[in-house]
């Protein structure tokens, strides 16, 4: 789809697109001094490449730069994370299959290099990410259901604008934050769901 406008065709929908501006805002909340965002992803995943492209634009708008570390296979993820030590101020992990599969390897590097991990996937917070702002897929289902109801009641799909989720779930892990050398602000702790490493 080219835009979020009503398409006039038979297609509409609800997207689980990562809210990158919000992620960058979260990175700034977790590590206020961060200027260089290190991102680990597999260059073979179209989804991840698109996220990294958008991340670069969003980061430059926020006055930050992106340092890329590619991991074509899960065994290369720790090496990619290690390459970010000294080159980035914070690690951002997109919803990338390789990255999520080998997440513990990233957390180990984060602790050694005092390089906090901010994630796009809330499920990785209890695996050792400091914070994540993610979508709640139950809400996405509910939101999609509402669109379906409108269509069932006779509205044309082509007349309904595509949407992104409005409900985000903020999850933080104060224990992981301590190990990775940051302290979470009271404001974050108050607004977020707090979990600890399993």
């Amino acid at each position, binding site marked *: 789809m080219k835009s979020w406008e009503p398409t006039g065709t038979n297609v509409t929908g609800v997207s689980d697109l990562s809210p990158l501006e919000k992620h960058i805002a979260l990175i700034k909340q977790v590590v206020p001094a961060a200027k260089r965002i290190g991102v680990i992803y597999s260059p073979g995943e179209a989804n991840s490449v698109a996220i990294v492209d958008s991340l670069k634009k969003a980061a430059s708008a926020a006055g930050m730069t992106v340092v890329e570390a590619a991991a074509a296979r899960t*065994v290369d993820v720790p*090496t990619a994370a290690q390459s970010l*030590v000294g080159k980035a101020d914070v690690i951002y992990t997109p919803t990338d299959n390789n990255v999520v599969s080998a*997440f*513990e*390897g990233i957390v180990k590097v984060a602790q050694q*290099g005092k390089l906090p991990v901010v994630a796009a996937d809330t499920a990785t917070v209890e*695996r050792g990410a400091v914070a994540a702002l993610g979508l709640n897929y139950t809400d996405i289902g509910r939101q999609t259901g509402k669109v379906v109801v409108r269509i069932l009641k006779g509205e044309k799909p082509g007349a309904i604008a595509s949407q992104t989720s409005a409900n985000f779930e903020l999850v933080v892990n104060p224990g992981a934050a301590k190990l990775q050398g940051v302290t979470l602000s009271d404001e974050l702790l108050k607004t977020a769901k707090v979990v600890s490493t399993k």
Partner: protein
Amino acid sequence: MSLIASLGAIEIGLIFGLVALGVFLSFRIINFPDLTVDGSFPLGAAVAATLIVAGWNPVAATAVACVAGAASGWVTAWLNVKLKIMQLLASILVMIALYSINLRVMGKPNVALITEPTVFSMASFGGMPEQWAKPLLLLLIVIVAKIVVDMFFASEAGLAMRATGGNARMARAQGISTDFHTMAGLALSNALVALAGALFAQSQGTADISMGVGTIVIGLAAVIIGETLIPARSMVITTLACIVGALLYRFFIAMALNTDFMGLQAQDLNLVTAVLVAFALLVPAYKRRLGGLFKGKN
């Protein structure tokens, strides 16, 4: 390259040194192109991680992982020598079967080891920081594995295995059971690879179903880099060369991750790695050409 990146390259390089030893054994010693390693590496990781999560002692879990790896190598060789399935195909069959077996072993696509004890948490060398303790313990393990392999190759059974790969007909004429030695050789090879997988899972905190993809490529590259840079007739030096090759290969990857000049981007990583490896392989040829200037051993 930062200190953490260098220590990380050493750590993972040493682990893949064990893979290189295994690949050297199958490809070079018994002359069997064995792709089982793409399955036995994650098998070792899966068995070790699952047993550790179930409360086993990490050393015992690692030992069972080696036995599982040995069994997978044995099956590959059995398919070849008993059922007469072509070598490559036999190993491919076991490799793809292991994908399902690994999923069964773990019960899910990945098993995390975060707070569980590992062989690395057991050996802290008196409170040494983890990033130093892990490569040190791995160095000890790799040295022990190398010495065991060297001693084996010097023994009667080891010589019989080398004869099996070198000239099977002559070996049979000397009363050597080439079938048995092929199976034993692949078992030993895959036990080493599974040991590497078990150690990788424990050092990185996760066993993952897709971690085996391309293990054979890294292993072969390590063996060839080692053999090219340190050519030797002595088995003791050649096994050392395999480990050095694996270390160099991981250093090349770490270096490639640090190349942000000339407009190189993250997706160029594999290309840069390949170019670095190619340059390394050119070194001996140039040494020979400039023979008069470099009067080295080789």
